[in-house]
């Protein structure tokens, strides 16, 4: 099997597992308990916090553990909204291709009286700091722009956006769920006020995440109860998962330059191979993209049938077609970069793992070529395009 869906989730690393196991069976005390056994769990928790903080160039006090990226996104937006509302600022700037954890929270805030500006995304899957600067108003409470897109992998100019926001005195949050462990992150240099990440995207366990919030930003609770996480996130800490996440992030960051170099080589080999398929296109900028991400549209086929046939060949991948999302519309990300519906249905995302080999890349290329050709041969759309009855959308 070739697992090429690492943007969906990843395998827990040996280092993460080794960090988790003792917390399950040995250091299993409650970090809130007074006795030494509980306090040793507390020490492990604070150790994990400090290590994660170092990876982000943050202070440990700025790290809050959550159940994952979605919770961190929700809490960041709720925090900024509450802070803004106190000063009469009820305008939020974001982009049209954010993750639904952002977009659906913004929908909820809109119903509560906030005005939302969603910046248009260019065809290459990027926005500019200038667009952000032009959208900022005196009543803007927050700018939230994802670090790297989960579908098409494009990496936004985060440091430039951070500089614009800091200069204008507007809070800046970034959903870094796809970036953490895969791209260098420095919350100070990039002038990021809040950042969300998720442990299972970089070989940590599922069900754990982080909200970084710069010192001085008073978080709004989503979950009330005990005094954990400085009263800002109640519930007994999931220490095994947190310890695993810290180990995974440290390991990823330590090997970042070598894995990046290797992945970019494999990614570009895959992109070159798939580009040979006629009437197809790479989605998202070829350079400003995650080292692991390849996303294509193939005209005249539908993504779900593509995924099922790739599955038969032992390949795990994903698509932005409506049929795979369970909704009637194809991916909002592909629509946001201007792909027409009929083309967006024929999309394929391959997100590579660090251990992918040349042979596996070649197998991916050959398999996708086979399946696309097979499906096109039974597609009335393909016939009609080839008979000149309608124009091709993709050259």
């Amino acid at each position, binding site marked *: 099997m070739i697992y090429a869906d690492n943007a969906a989730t990843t395998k827990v690393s040996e280092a993460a597992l080794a960090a988790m196991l003792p917390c399950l069976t040995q250091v299993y005390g409650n970090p809130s308990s007074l006795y030494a056994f509980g306090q040793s769990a507390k020490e492990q928790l604070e150790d994990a916090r400090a290590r994660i903080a170092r990876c982000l160039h943050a202070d440990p006090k700025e790290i809050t553990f959550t159940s994952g990226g979605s919770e961190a996104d929700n809490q960041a937006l709720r925090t900024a909204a509450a802070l803004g509302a106190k000063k009469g600022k009820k305008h939020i700037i974001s982009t049209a291709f954010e993750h639904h954890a952002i977009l659906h929270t913004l929908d909820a805030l809109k119903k509560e009286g906030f005005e939302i500006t969603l910046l248009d995304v260019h065809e290459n899957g990027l926005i500019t700091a200038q667009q952000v600067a032009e959208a900022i108003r005196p009543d803007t409470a927050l700018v939230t722009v994802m670090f790297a897109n989960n579908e098409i992998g494009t990496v936004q100019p985060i440091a430039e956006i951070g500089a614009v926001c800091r200069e204008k005195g507007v809070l800046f949050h970034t959903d870094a769920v796809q970036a953490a462990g895969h791209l260098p992150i420095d919350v100070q240099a990039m002038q990021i006020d809040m950042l969300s990440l998720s442990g299972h995207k970089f070989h940590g366990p599922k069900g754990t995440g982080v909200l970084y919030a710069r010192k001085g930003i008073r978080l709004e609770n989503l979950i009330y109860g005990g005094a954990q996480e400085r009263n800002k996130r109640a519930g007994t800490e999931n220490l095994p998962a947190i310890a695993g996440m810290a180990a995974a992030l440290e390991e990823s960051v330590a090997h970042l330059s070598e894995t990046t170099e290797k992945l970019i080589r494999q990614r570009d080999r895959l992109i070159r191979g798939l580009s040979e398929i006629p009437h197809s296109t790479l989605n998202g900028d070829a350079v400003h993209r995650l080292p692991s991400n390849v996303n294509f549209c193939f005209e005249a086929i539908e993504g779900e049938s593509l995924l099922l046939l790739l599955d038969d060949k032992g390949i795990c991948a994903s698509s932005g077609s409506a049929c795979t999302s369970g909704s009637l519309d194809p991916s909002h990300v592909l629509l946001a970069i201007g792909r027409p519906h009929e083309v967006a249905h024929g999309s394929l995302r391959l997100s590579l793992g660090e251990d992918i080999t040349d042979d596996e890349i070649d197998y991916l290329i050959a398999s996708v070529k086979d399946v696309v050709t097979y499906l096109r041969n039974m597609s*009335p759309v393909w016939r009609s395009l080839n008979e000149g009855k309608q124009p091709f959308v993709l050259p």
Partner: protein
Amino acid sequence: MALYSEKVMDHFRNPRNVGVIENADGVGEVGNAKCGDIMKIYLKITGEQGSEIIEDVKFETFGCGSAIASSSMATELIAGKPLSEALTLTNKAVTEALDGLPAHKLHCSVLAEEAIKAAVKDYYDKNGIAYDPEQFREGDEPHCCGD
């Protein structure tokens, strides 16, 4: 549990009657590329008017696994049958023959029924055969995106 039944996967992996019939007696195309599925059915019809037989049937489909499987099953259900029987084919019969479809995929079986009826209607129209338009009323499948 798998998304689809074994029957669906069999018809998806090994679709029956894929292709085109040149100079077909009836052709029906339904669906919308914007919605992600289009089905096209070709019929070769023989026999006296009123007792026609579907001698051959082929399909082309752009769509998901269940759209391809539904087209394949629908063509199998009508191949070699009297034309009048094709008109009584229901999406329910297609779904049952496939051992069921997930709820959000039932519209694929509706498309298969409509594609076959559209091909029969095309045959009637081409040959000036009178019919009750009520038989070809479009179903009330949910409308998608993009429209």
